[in-house]
């Protein structure tokens, strides 16, 4: 049985397991989505959007769909993967199942932080209004997720409320031998004037292959402010396709900041759209790869409303046999006058075996706009390296500092000090930068 047949079987099982417990509209959405996936299958290199990234090897694996034996995970096991020293809400999922005892929930009349399943029970109206409304039904993997996913994080913040703490979401996988496919689904709803920050991470504990097909829908109301940090530092046996859809109201701001450090294959699809004027979207990412990792960033910003702004800053450093892909697309529709759209992609290649394919695209139908993209691929500045060496900094350190500075731009939008420190430390560790020495110099 190939993966697609197994998924069909699994979809049937899911239907009988749920046994009509979900609303009729949701059931219909699921079966419609699954039919679409069945018709389309997994994307191949023949699709322009998947030209440089092949799922072929992954989907050929023998995935195991039998229900997993839940393994004993203790609080200290997961601690290293969370932001330390920070009072926060925690949502922990073990093998796709929500683990209440390890989590730190928050729920009152102002907001709700919990799992999607809980949300379906406790506030079905909100779920029905937002679930599946943003996700593109014409992408086969998103359709597959819509059909099969029934667990993930759910954060709901009411009008005018500022969520007091960071929400940390951790998806843990513990499979040893067999290959597992995960369908996780997050829903974040911020009403007008609300504020929230989220930190998301997927982590495997053992060397079994994991293929996560994750979809996130974020609905950001008028004048609301939303930040979403993603840390992708999984084992090299794990791969992930992450599709994130963000809809922003007037005067709102949203940030998706991605830190991609490893993984067999990581594909990030970011989709931004605006419903009101003067909204601001920011996409930052830093990719530091080694080994045979492949990270593919696809962004799509749809400017259909005037006076909006989007900023993309993608930095990448590629070593050993790693491969990077960037495909940024900005669409400015006919009425979206006064749009400001910027896109920047800078890359460093460190090894003869690393490669980068980049394609920054602009599609513009309005005349009164300022749109630009810039893309560079190069090496470290020889003169800067020389200067540092004349000042007694060894070449190795000098290189590390320059790379650290190169990558550092993408950290500027992080406002939570503990989170920033942790991410800086991570970047420094990846680049082998001695932060103490750095401080002495600067």
């Amino acid at each position, binding site marked *: 049985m190939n993966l697609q047949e197994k998924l069909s079987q699994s979809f049937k099982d899911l239907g009988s397991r749920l046994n009509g417990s979900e609303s009729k509209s949701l059931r219909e959405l699921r079966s419609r989505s699954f039919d679409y996936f069945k018709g389309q299958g997994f994307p191949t290199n023949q699709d322009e959007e998947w030209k440089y990234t092949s799922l072929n090897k992954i989907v050929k694996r023998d995935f195991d769909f039998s229900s997993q034996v839940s393994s004993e995970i203790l609080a200290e096991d997961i601690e290293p993967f969370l932001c330390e020293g920070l009072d926060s809400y925690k949502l922990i999922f073990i093998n796709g199942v929500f683990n209440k005892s390890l989590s730190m929930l928050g729920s009152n009349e102002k907001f709700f932080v919990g799992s999607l399943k809980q949300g379906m029970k406790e506030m079905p109206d909100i779920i029905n209004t937002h679930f599946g409304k943003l996700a593109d039904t014409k992408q086969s993997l998103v359709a597959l997720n819509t059909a099969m996913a029934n667990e993930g994080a759910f954060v709901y913040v009411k009008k005018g409320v500022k969520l007091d703490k960071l929400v940390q979401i951790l998806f843990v996988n513990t499979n040893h031998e067999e290959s597992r496919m995960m369908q996780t689904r997050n829903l974040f709803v911020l009403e007008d004037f609300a504020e929230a920050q989220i930190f998301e991470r997927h982590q495997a504990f053992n060397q079994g292959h994991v293929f996560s097909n994750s979809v996130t829908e974020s609905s950001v109301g008028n004048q609301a402010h939303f930040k979403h940090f993603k840390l992708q530092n999984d084992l090299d046996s794990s791969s992930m396709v992450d599709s994130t859809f963000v809809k922003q109201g007037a005067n709102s701001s949203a940030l998706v900041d991605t830190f991609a450090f490893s993984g067999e294959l990581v594909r990030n699809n970011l989709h931004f759209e605006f419903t009101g004027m003067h909204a601001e979207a920011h996409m930052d990412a830093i990719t530091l790869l080694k080994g045979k990792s492949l990270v593919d960033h696809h962004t799509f910003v749809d400017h259909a409303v005037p006076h909006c702004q989007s900023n993309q800053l993608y930095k990448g450093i590629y070593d050993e046999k790693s491969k990077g892909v960037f495909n940024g697309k900005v669409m400015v529709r006919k009425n979206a006058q006064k749009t400001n759209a910027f896109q920047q992609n800078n890359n460093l290649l460190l090894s003869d075996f690393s490669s980068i394919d980049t394609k920054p695209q*602009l599609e513009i139908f309005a005349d009164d706009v300022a749109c630009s993209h810039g893309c560079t691929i190069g090496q470290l500045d020889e003169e800067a390296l020389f200067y540092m060496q004349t000042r007694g900094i060894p070449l190795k350190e000098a290189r590390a500092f320059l790379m650290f500075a190169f990558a550092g731009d993408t950290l500027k939008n992080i406002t939570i000090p503990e989170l920033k420190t942790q991410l800086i430390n991570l970047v420094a560790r990846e680049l082998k930068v001695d932060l103490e020495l750095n401080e002495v110099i600067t």
Partner: protein
Amino acid sequence: MTEEDKILQEVTTTDYKYGFVTDIDSDTINKGLNEDVIRLISMKKNEPDWLLEWRLDAFRKFQKMTEPEWANVTYDKPDLQSISYYSAPKPKKTLESLDEVDPELLKTFEKLGISLEEQKRLTGVAVDIVVDSVSVATSFKEKLGELGIIFCSISEAIQEHPELVKKYIGSVVPKTDNFYAALNSAVFTDGSFCYIPKGTRCPMELSTYFRINQAGTGQFERTLLIADEGSYVSYLEGCTAPSRDENQLHAAVVELIALDNAEIKYSTVQNWYPGNKEGKGGVFNFVTKRGICHKSAKISWTQVETGSAVTWKYPSCILKGDNSIGEFFSVAVTNNYQQADTGTKMIHVGKNTKSTIISKGISAGKSNGNYRGLVKIMKGAENARNFSQCDSLLMGDQCGSHTFPYIEVKNKSARIEHEATTSKIGEDQLFYCNQRGIGTDEAIGLIVNGYCKDVLNQLPMEFAVEAQKLLSLSLEGSVG
């Protein structure tokens, strides 16, 4: 209506000025595409067997190919069976001087402002005129002959220099490269051939004027240009086509070969009939242009594209030799319902190879302009360098501009810079000009000219004038 709107209104309603039909007796074979037609073309042109085999092979492979759909253009696909693949003005006798050329034909050129005698006497440009498919007049041939330069029609070259043609034809653009290149390989009727011997600097600009003339005739030109070691040549190509209601297909193939230390400069001014302002008619321009640079060679493409209903064209450079250089300078203007999907490919294979891409797009009316480019750094291309800049200017709110740059890098020593901007003419710039007593009309002209200057500067003198003329024709009312 503001001043600016008026100008845009004028721009978008201007008719094509070069539309006229010349009545010349033509020798046209029946419409349709099959092996017999290819045999007939080959026979009429008295071609050697290897070329017929080559054509037939291309045709057989062509039949297995499908028309590409990836370009961001929409059009009704031309019916390849309803095209006549051979049309030549009936040869009355061998022509030795201009007096013998069909007077009707000469009139056509006069209307286009290309007086052969003028060109011969004043500008020193050797003109190999191609009307439809067969060249009827070649000038300055003897003068070039003294230097050993061969500049003739490709059919002549097939007869007289078969060894050169056989060696290089299809070596840069393989016959199965793409759908239209394969079609061209199967049915090409004529085109230009040029060979510059070792160490020779061609003393004049070589130029060919193309015109599509015969109604319902597809034109399949084949240009082959070989610059031998250490030589230099500047080649100009320009075209205007008469007004027609049915779409005409133009699928040319241009192959450039720059051997060690050679330099080729290839300039194009393209002004095929773009269709009327409702978007009806117009030429389909599906061209494959590619050059290969050997050691320390240089190929420079310059193009000013103002015509055609649909343009689908990517002049490319394969930088095979170490230290070779590729350049691409382009101005693409689209107006009314025109669509252009154009750009370049720079394939870096050799060490220390350099490439520069400057692309300026101007979209007006209801047109769509696309830049689609590829910069590819292969694994062995140490210290490759690329700089790309693609800017788009939008005039009016009903046009579109799109940028699709592909950058693929497999070598760590590569340095690539790519930047693109899209904007309209700044109100502050216009205001400044107005305030200095320059009318909005002239100001737009000034700004557009300045915007395209980087590219227009690359054109040889004679062409720069014509290019500016075409720019102002295409954007009439907005270019001073």
